[in-house]
């Protein structure tokens, strides 16, 4: 049971707007959005930020899902983990790619290229100590990704650290995130 009630019927315009956005994007209103529903300002802004993250962006959504999976594992959070595994597969990732980020196999896996590996290194380091990301790793990241993509990746990693922490703290689970097809 969640720490806070899961709002079923919004009685506030901000929450109605957030639920509508969630319904359109996810095909339903996820429990995390319902849990935030007691606080209209937080519900509206966090929902908009999550929706912005979970779509095609400067970085492909398929790869972003792998980054999310690695991030959740790196902080020992399993909020929505199964849902993100399913999404990762629906967005074109092979079971091998999904499996190899569950442990350290990604470091030598033939299923990833150097650009992707550098991002997983960034995930690992941010989770442990964001102050200690080596200049050498940034050199490699800048070689493969442009500035906008690097902002998106850093924001994605740290957003899902936030989402994992908030959802686990509030005791919210979302075994299914999307109830609509994400790929035509």
């Amino acid at each position, binding site marked *: 049971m969640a720490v806070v009630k899961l709002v079923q019927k919004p009685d506030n315009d901000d929450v109605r707007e957030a639920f509508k956005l969630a319904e359109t994007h996810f095909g339903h209103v996820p429990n995390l959005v319902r849990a*935030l529903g*007691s*606080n209209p300002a937080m519900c509206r802004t966090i929902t908009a930020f999550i929706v912005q993250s979970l779509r095609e962006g400067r970085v492909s959504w398929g790869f972003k899902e792998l980054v999310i999976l690695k991030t959740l594992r790196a902080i020992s959070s399993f909020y929505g983990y199964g849902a993100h595994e399913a999404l990762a597969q629906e967005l074109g990732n092979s079971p091998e790619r999904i499996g190899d980020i569950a442990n350290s196999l990604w470091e030598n896996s033939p299923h990833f290229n150097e650009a992707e590996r550098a991002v997983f290194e960034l995930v690992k380091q941010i989770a442990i100590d964001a*102050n200690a990301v080596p200049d050498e790793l940034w050199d490699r990241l800048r070689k493969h990704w442009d500035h906008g993509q690097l*902002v998106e990746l*850093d*924001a994605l990693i*740290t*957003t899902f650290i936030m989402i994992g922490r908030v959802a686990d*703290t509030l005791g919210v689970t979302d075994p299914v995130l999307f109830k609509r097809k994400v790929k035509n």
Partner: protein
Amino acid sequence: MSAKPAQLPLVEPDQADALTKQIYENAEKRFQMVLNIFKVTGHASEIAEKMWNIFFEILAEGQVDWYTKELLILKATKTGDCLYCVTQHEVVAERLGVTPEKQKDLVGQVYKDSPHFNDKECAIVDLCAHMCVDPEQIPADVWTRVKSYYDDGQIVELAVTVGAYIQVSKFGDALGVQLEDVFSGHQPRLFAKEPPKSAAARHHLEHFLERGKAAAH
């Protein structure tokens, strides 16, 4: 001594696209300046817009008063060894009435026996301390105390405040975003009381203090 540049160039207002300019204007209205961490997000304005909207809501009176949220922001960012956030929020918190003595008692478990903290504040600082490390280990007793003082909407705001500051501190630290010159000479009091655990953060602190000394001369 000049600051080491961030890992990505800062997007100055005259280089910014229309949406970024709007975000900078909002930031300047709220904070009297465009902070470096805003400028680094100018490379991806569509992400910056959604991200900063969360912080515009947190850094204001809400269902929880801003003063209380500053206690959590300082605790969360100190736990994460974020020099950038701690330094800025020591200044903000003091403007809102959180005395330097009270700020310093946020380190470790000092707040629990501090005359500056009441039971209500201790309950949420306890929650914050656990949330930063491992939410699964939040003791039931902490929840009992928190729920005796705060309703659901307020608990959401407390949790989001902590989560958002874990997010933004890691976001900026990973990119090596440096403190603005206006903070030069500030002596971070929480880190003076308890140095950063991270060797890299200790190095950043030493460098920042040297910058302050150099600027003073």
